[in-house]
Each structure stands twice: as C-alpha cells, then as structure tokens.
C-alpha cells in the first residue's frame, strides 16, 4: 500500500498548493510514490475522511467552519505538516489581527452579517499540534519536495532554521545591506528561499519568517541608525510573518512613540 | 552488647567528630539490632520513634503506589541514616515511606526521644548530631534531584 497523501486548504491564496504543482519534474513521480488521496485542487477523486500518512495543510484558520477541518485532519493524519506562512503564523491576512475586526468586515463587505469569520487569522498550531512547519510565502518547492521525501524515507527534513545570510553568502551574492545600504531582514529571517531578494538587488522582506534566535532588536536599532523612521521599521516587521511572536514584539516596540 | 555498640560507633564516620565522652553518652542510648531479610523497620503512616544507622547489609526505602507495584526509592548501606524524620520536633511527621531490610542487616538504633533529650541537654552533642543528620538529609536531597533529572531518559 502506498502512503496516502492529503493536501488541505484553509484561508490562503493557494500558492503553496501551486508550489506543489510547480514541481514539474517530480509531480508524476510523487503521484507514483504516493496515493494522492485528497487534493481537490488537482483531482475530483478525493477522500476527506482519511486516514492519511502525510497531510500538508495550507492556509490560516480564519473561519469557524475551518476549526473542525483542522481537528479532523490532525486526527486522521500520521504526520501533519503546516506549509506556508498562513498555516505557520496566520500569514499576511493576520494583518487584520491588529485591527478592529468588525470595522474590517464592514469596510470590505457592506452587509457583514453574511460573512462568518473569526476575529483573528490563526496558525494551525494554535489549534492542533503539527509535526513540522515549513516556512515560506510560498515555501520553496525544493524544500517542499524535501519534506515529502524525508517523510517517505523516514528521516527529518533537511530544513535549517539558519539566517538567509548563509544562503546569500553561499550563493556569492553581494550583501545589499552592507554594500548598497539597502535595509535587509535577511539576518533575522529563516533561510530556504535561496536568498532571492539579495540576488535581485533587493533587501529581504522576510517572506520566510523569523529564524531561530532572531535578534530583531539589534537589527531594528541598526535600521533606525541608518535613517529609517521607527514607524517604517515597525511596518517592515509587520508584514507576511508579522504575527510571528518575535516580529510581533519588535513591531510593537518600534511603533511606540 | 554495649561493647558492640561502642565499637560500631567508633567505626562510623558519622560520629568521628565526637569526643570520647560524648560518644559514650550517645552509646548509652543506642543498641544493636540484627534484622532478617525483609524485616520491616518502618511502615508508611507510622510515627517513628527511632533513628537507625546502617552497619551491615542494605535497607530499602519504598513507596506504596496505589494500583501499582511498590516502588523502590533508595537503598541505604553502611553509615547511612534510616528514619531521620524522628529527629524533627514534635509533632513528629508520620513516615511517608516503608523501610525494610533487603538482606540480613545489622543496625544501630537510637530511641529518638532519648536522643532529642540528650541533644537538648548537651548542645555540643546536639550540634554534632544535628549536623550529621543535616548532612545526610542534604546529600539525599541532592541525589533525589539528580534522579528527578532523569539523565538517562530519552532526549528528543
């Protein structure tokens, strides 16, 4: 019996699932190695009931109806992996967690009574324990493949919580922060993207979220020394992984007058 | 018999700091007890009236675990105290563990009431005795902490 894979979606842009479909060279091999039992974006043959050997869950929990979906996924999955920023920490849409929810609803929808949403966009791990969290908005497709492979062969995925700077230096990119004075969140951001932004002469905006032991305070001080107003520093930490605790705390500190 | 007590006391590190006269005063309160294997010294819930020092053999402290097998907490050997809580001021706590001889054992037994009265009357002896008790209790506390750390347990 082939291991059974499920791909489940919550509140999201579908980019993580698209990333899985972007594994053009490996997609058919994945289909051969695994029984893709539930992946509604890819197939009309689906089985929401399970059980599953590996479940990839994309998106944040932002509607009441999603709560039982997540609990069921946990109960029916040997391994539950939260993929992407939304599933990790609530995602970009967690920006609304700082705002008045009712006000947001009325701003977007004239008749908010039709719409059922939770007051906060939550990570999956707030509801159920997850076996692994794959960072990234979107995750890197090679890392996604590595997660699937690692679970198939029975080892821990080679996903490191180091800073983007390591990947950046390994790639030989010139440091944009030092050489051009472009503010870069690479030092506090988890690697995995391949240091894309510095490679395109742009500062990292942390779409992979905080790395382990992120010294956000020292970097934020440095950005202020280089002339960024505190409000802008706060904004930079409050973006895609803004709801992740280290970034949330840093943006709160900088926001204060 | 009392000769045996004196010799035993002399052989123990525990009483080395006492003067000859002090050791004699203490020896007067002690007697030797020879226990067969599995003999019970203390049972959970009893108010102990004696303090023992192990001379030979081993004594096991154990805990009754409701619905499970009795758990061994510690084995005590030569020179170690059994029933130290009898030295606490009244009302003495009741024993929270069982003590039994794991094998045929010889112990030096003190009547706790007599011992406390002697310590009260002669603070110099009292100081040495209580320091020895404290040292033994302290060591046991440290060792218990190490056990709690579960150093051989599986790390993630």
């Amino acid at each position: 019996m082939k291991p059974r894979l499920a791909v489940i979606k919550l509140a999201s842009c579908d980019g993580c699932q698209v990333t899985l479909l972007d594994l053009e060279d490996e997609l058919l091999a994945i289909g051969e190695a695994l029984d893709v039992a539930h992946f509604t974006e890819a197939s009309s043959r689906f089985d929401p009931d399970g059980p599953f050997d590996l479940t990839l869950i994309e998106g944040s929990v932002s509607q009441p109806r999603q709560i039982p979906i997540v609990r069921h996924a946990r109960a029916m999955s040997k391994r539950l992996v939260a993929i992407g920023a939304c599933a990790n920490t609530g995602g970009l849409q967690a920006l609304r967690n700082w705002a008045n929810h009712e006000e947001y609803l009325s701003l977007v929808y004239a008749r908010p009574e039709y719409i059922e949403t939770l007051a906060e966009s939550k990570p999956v791990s707030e509801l159920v324990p997850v076996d692994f969290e794959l960072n990234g908005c979107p995750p890197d497709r090679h890392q996604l493949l590595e997660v699937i492979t690692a679970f198939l062969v029975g080892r821990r995925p080679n996903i490191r919580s180091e800073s983007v700077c390591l990947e950046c230096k390994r790639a030989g990119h010139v440091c944009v922060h030092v050489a051009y004075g472009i503010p870069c969140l690479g030092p506090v951001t988890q690697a995995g993207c391949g240091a894309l932004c510095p490679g395109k002469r742009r500062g990292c905006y942390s779409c992979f979220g905080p790395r382990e032991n992120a010294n956000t305070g020292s970097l934020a001080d440095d950005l202020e020394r280089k002339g960024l107003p505190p409000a802008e520093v706060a904004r930079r930490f409050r973006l895609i992984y803004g709801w992740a605790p280290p970034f949330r705390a840093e943006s709160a500190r900088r926001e204060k007058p | 018999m009392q000769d045996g007590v004196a010799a035993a006391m002399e052989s123990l590190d525990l009483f080395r700091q006492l003067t000859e006269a002090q050791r004699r005063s203490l020896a007067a309160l002690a007697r030797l007890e020879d226990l067969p294997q599995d003999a019970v010294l203390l049972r959970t819930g009893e108010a102990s009236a004696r303090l023992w020092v192990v001379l030979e053999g081993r004594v096991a402290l154990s805990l009754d675990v409701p619905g499970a097998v009795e758990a061994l907490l510690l084995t005590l050997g030569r020179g170690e105290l059994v029933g130290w809580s009898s030295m606490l001021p009244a009302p003495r706590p009741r024993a929270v563990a069982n003590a039994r001889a794991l094998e045929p054992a010889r112990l030096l037994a003190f009547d706790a009431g007599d011992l406390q009265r002697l310590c009260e009357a002669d603070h110099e002896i009292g100081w040495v005795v209580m320091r020895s008790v404290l040292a033994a209790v302290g060591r046991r506390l440290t060792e218990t902490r190490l056990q709690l750390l579960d150093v051989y347990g599986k790390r993630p």
Partner: protein
Amino acid sequence: MTAQALARDDLGALFDALRAEGYRVVGPTLRDDAIVLADLRGPEDLPAGWTVRQGPGTYRVERRDDEALFGFAVGQHSWKGFLFPSRERLVEMRREDGALEHRPAARDAAPLAFLGVRGCDLAAIEVQDRTFMRGRHVDPGYDARRRAAFVVAVDCLEAGDLCFCASMGTGPGVERGFDLRLTELGPRFLVAVGSARGASVAARLPLRAAPAGDERRRRDGLDDARAHMGRTMQADDLPGLLFGNLDHPRWDDVAARCLACANCTLVCPTCFCFSVETVSDLSGTEARRDRAWDSCFTVQHGQIHGATFRPRIKDRYRQWLTHKLGAWVSQFGVSGCTGCGRCIAWCPVGIDLTEEVAAIRATSRPAVAMPPPPAPAPAVREPMVPATARVTAVRRETDDVVTLRIAHEIAFRPGQFHMLGLPAIGEVPISIAGGDGRSVDHTIRAVGAVSGALAALEPGHALGIRGPFGSAWPLEACVGRPVVVVAGGVGLAPLRAALDTMAARPLDYPSVRLLYGARTPADLLFTDDLQRWAADPRFAVRVTVDHAGADWRGDVGVVTRLITDVPPDAVALVCGPEMMMGFSVRALCAAGLPAERAYVSMERNMACAVAHCGRCQLGPYFVCRDGPVFRFDRIARLFDQEGF
C-alpha cells in the same frame, strides 16, 4: 639577479601565459557595484581605477584618482569559495535489491589561477591547508584543487580602513607561498617568481629589468601600508587570554548587538565549518551526502539529537571568537585570523573584533595555558566515503537499544567510534562496543531518525561504515592499577570493549570495579556480560538504578552513591550522560582521585569525524580527533562551562 618588471600594458600576456599552461583565471572584477572574485577574460576585467571605502558594516566602491588595477582592499569574496566551495557533493550512494554502493562524488579538477592574492589571503589559504590537507585525514577535493592552483600574489601598498594584517603578521607584503608576485608600481609591475611553476609562466612574459629603485619603492610602499593600517590587534597570548575570560561581561554586551547571522564566518577566508546533509530521491534508491558552509552561529552547528550546546547568541559569538583567535592555535598551530577585516565590514551591524578583544583585554583576568597542537600526519584520503558492511546478528538489549554485529575486518581500540549510515537517512557516530577483528559490535539506542533506522536493521541488511575514529581508553596507563569504571545508561557500550580487554588480561588488571547506573532494571545493557564480569574474582560489579519495583534486589539511587573507598592509585574511566559524568568525576575527586587519572568519553555532533567540519569542537579540541576519550583535567575548565 636583477629585479624584473612587467609593463602594465603587457598584463594581457600574463593571462595568455596562464591560459597556455591550462589555467582558468579568476580574480577581482567590478560587478554590481562591488569588487568580487570571478572569472576574468583579461586585464580589461580588472577594476582599474576603483577602490573601496569600508567601515564597520559598510562597503562602497569609489573611483580612485588614478587607474591602479589593484588599488583596493579585500572584498566580500575570498579564495575560499574556489578551494572550499560553498556546496560540494561528497559521496554518492545507491541502494537497490539489497545491494548498497558508496562512491566518491566526481570532482571538477580544472586548475585555477588566482590573480591578485593579497598577503592576508595567501596566509588564509595556508591556514585552511592545515585543516584540510595537513591533518590525519586529507580532504581529497580541497587537496586536488589546492595543489593545482596557481597563485599570483599582489603586494598591498595601501592599507585598507579595516586592515590589520600587520598585527597578525600576514601582510601587507607577500614574501612566500606564491608562484608569482606582482607589485603595482604605476605603469609597471615588479615581478617576483616564487616557484618552478611561476618560473615557467614568467618565461612566457615580456619581462624587462626593473628600474633601479623599484625594490626600494616596494619596501617604502609596504612600510607606508604597515604604518597606516586601519585597525590593530594585540595578538600575543590571545588564546590564553580569551579562554581565561570566558565569563567576561563583554560577551553579554556583544551578544546584545550580534545578529548571529553568520556573515562574519562566511566571509572569513579561514572559517571552515560545514554541515553534511543527506539528500535522496523519493524512493530512497539514489542518495548522496553534500556538504555546505555552516557556521558556529547556527543552532544546528551546536546540536546533538535535540540538545543545543550553544543556545544563546552569546555562546555562539564566544565560540567564534575564542575559536578564531584562540582554539585555532591549539588545533592547527596557527591563529585563525589573518587580519583581513572582512568580518568587520560585512557584519550588518558593524561588530569589530579588534574592539571586542581590546575591551576584554582592558579588564581581563589572567590568561590560562592552552594545549599544544598535534603533529601533522596526513594519511587517510577519501575519509568521507563509507565502506559497505552487513549486519550479521542483532541482539535486543532493551526496549529501545539493540546491538548490531557487523561484518567488518578492522582493528580498533576500545573507546573509538565509527560513523554508521544509511544512504537515504543519514549518518551518526556510534561507539564500538566490541569486536573480534572480523566483526564489530555497535550498541545503538533509537533516539532519532538515523539511530532509529539503524536499530531497525536485520541480519543481512547493508549499511555504510566509516572509521574507526578518535581516541581510546588509556588501557596501558591502567596496567597494574586498580581501575574504577563508572558507566551510566548506554554509556556502558563504549566501555564494553575496554572491560573485556581487562577481563582477558588478568595479570595486567588485578582489580576492576564497575559501577553502573541505569534508569530502571529493564534499561540495563549487557546483562550477560555483567554476570560474566561479576563472576571474575578480580571484578567488583555494582549496579544501581534510579527507579525500580519491589522485586529488584540491586541498589536504587544515583550511580555516584556507589563511588566510595576509591583507591588513591586508581584510574577511573567514566562514560554516560554529561550530567552524570560531571557528578561522577566530582565524587571520584572528592574520594581522593586526582583529576588527571579520571577519563571521560564526550559526545558532540560529529558530522565528518575527521576534524574538518568543525561541529564537534570543545574549546581547543575536536571531539572526533582529540576525543571522544579525554583526560578529565584537560577539559575540566570547559566541562561545566555553559555554551561549550
């Protein structure tokens, strides 16, 4: 011989000559507003008329008021990227139908010519040579690239803002180690030949006698550079100073600023730490091990099955600086710092190691003595390619511990370890628990993915094996003395072969006391062996457990309770969890044993096992090379030091 010169306009001839001799020329060029090292087509790719202005955390290229070709200080890139590439495949593996094949990865050996190597950077190459080529194990890829590389060195006649090579004795002039050396003197280069290969290339160049005074101009330029270094470092006694001040408050101060981003280590031309990753296809049929630059600033670098030795940024910065400026000398006989200043420029928040060292020195406690480096002994090539071996027997010791007997003809000394691996899963160090010359025993506790997979092997299964590695128990020093063996948990496994050796040599080992602690009676290893040893009249075996039921007739309590009446002339061998070893050694010493007669077996995350990857460092030591068995007094200072 008169000095020779090459006209600037003839520099193209140097490129031609190098290409004619088969070299690919790499050197500095201006790209994306920075001077980087890359393939060069000819002199036109050199950064003519450019210089750099650097400060802590900043780097900017600027126009010079002349057209000098080498008028700039070193940039972010170093030659390390060519000799020790940031990613490299080490081993390829294939498992199919029960067969398992290991083979070294193919290597691209196109010889490189490094054009424009500064003194500091040439020194850095020689520092890395010691890591990868001069130890017992030789890295074949590095060795091949290094031996093939042609070095065109360039003197620095101007000091950079962050340079302190004069302090470290590596520059500004280049005096040896080059094939050719250029000194840029306006319209011409003074050329020196440093090797036969250099002479061969020089013979193809239109050299002319240098004008009188050029040699003096060179010396004056170097003196001027030396006098205007942007930074200085008082380099004497640094190892002892830093290791004597591991509790200095400055570490907390710098930790508040340090991002632990690892930039300093990756731009450093001598930092060599790497991690080894196992990569496989979906089926696990094809797998490989790759290495990638790593850093002591990452959490993985100091991690061993879940435990983190350097959890705080403070621990990591201190590890870096004490290693770079201190431990390096004990490990390789040279400082790890060449004074190039890269770590200052490329630190995003501008931390300056010269400033940190000065601050520590200003209020320091006395320096301590450091161990001397081992003698170089290159011997083993391809140390990363495992042999394939098969499991012949499996014995279950406890719920989660098994002993594998592996057919492998190898000589080992008790206390050493092997790297055991499975192609798609990974590799872990496992101590040798016994052997008879035709097979080895490995006792494995299933704690992680790799150990779990190894513990699940069955007779007939194949695995990869490398080694044996590391130091052994001092069995010869024990001859004629009472031996106290203290073991905790699976820590009995690395001692088993030593105990068997002592059991087999009654005249040499008249008295052996084994004190063994475990979690519960069910967790005791080698119960047959324990009975066998206990039956030997020279052996006294005492076993204690932390928890037991009423049917247990042995001792209950921590293993240190068994440490009494230690003979004053005894030797103690201790192995178990670090916490247990610490308490045991302290109890042994309290019982009168001198610390130099206590030996412990340390565990760190050995990844290469050959003193190349830097992950198992313990202060001045590599656990894989200088350990795992250490005389306790040699590591006592670091033993209880948080962050080591």
